[in-house]
């Protein structure tokens, strides 16, 4: 079993430190997500179901380790109020082979961005609005045969 590190919380993170912690064994793929700037968007407030995110993310990390020959993986996801441009998520994977690193990284970020128990409240100049689930996300999730 490879090394896996998972952190969910309001704290910001340092992508450089995350990358460095993935080692230098061959192929390191990473994804860093930021809150997108959109007209009128003041901030995004992320709420989650902590016991469920912890459990589900750990399970998806295990699944990634079972499906791909990973040497390390790191997941960081922020919650709370985040302004446009703020880092929100990091997924990093290390493998001896680049395809495995990329696929595992995409699998994990697809899960986090689509199925993980997070809810987003958009804070706008004219009020707040809960973001609704998108149809298009289902297609992305189905890519992984779940």
């Amino acid at each position: 079993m490879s090394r896996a590190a998972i952190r969910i919380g309001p704290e910001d993170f340092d992508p450089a430190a995350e990358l460095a912690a993935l080692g230098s064994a061959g192929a390191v793929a990473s994804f860093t997500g930021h809150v997108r700037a959109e007209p009128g968007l003041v901030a995004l407030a992320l709420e989650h179901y902590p016991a469920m995110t912890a459990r589900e993310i750990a399970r998806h990390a295990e699944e990634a380790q079972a499906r791909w020959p990973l040497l390390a993986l790191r997941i960081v996801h922020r919650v709370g109020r985040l302004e446009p441009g703020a880092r929100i998520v990091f997924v990093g994977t290390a493998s001896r082979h680049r395809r495995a690193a990329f696929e595992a990284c995409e699998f994990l970020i697809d899960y986090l961005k689509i199925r993980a128990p997070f809810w987003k409240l958009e804070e706008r100049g004219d009020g707040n609005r809960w973001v609704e689930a998108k149809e298009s996300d289902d297609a992305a999730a189905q890519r992984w045969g779940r």
Partner: protein
Amino acid sequence: MGRAVNVLYFAWVRQKTGTSGETVEADAATVRALAEHLRARGGGYAEAFADLARLRAAVNQEHVPFDAAIAADDEIAFFPPVTGG
């Protein structure tokens, strides 16, 4: 006698019920029955549970259909479809 379960609410469901969680004593054998019990309280609860098609549920941190059975001490969560991070 009812059974005591731990109920959690997220996102706009939490906003409508006005609480993030509570212990509920209800004679409910399924998630749906529990939701109907909560709706019958009226007020924000009636609003939160007005249309179950807009809600999702989990029992002990696992997604379940509304027909899922519940037992004493279960952790039952109601929330809108997840939007991901």
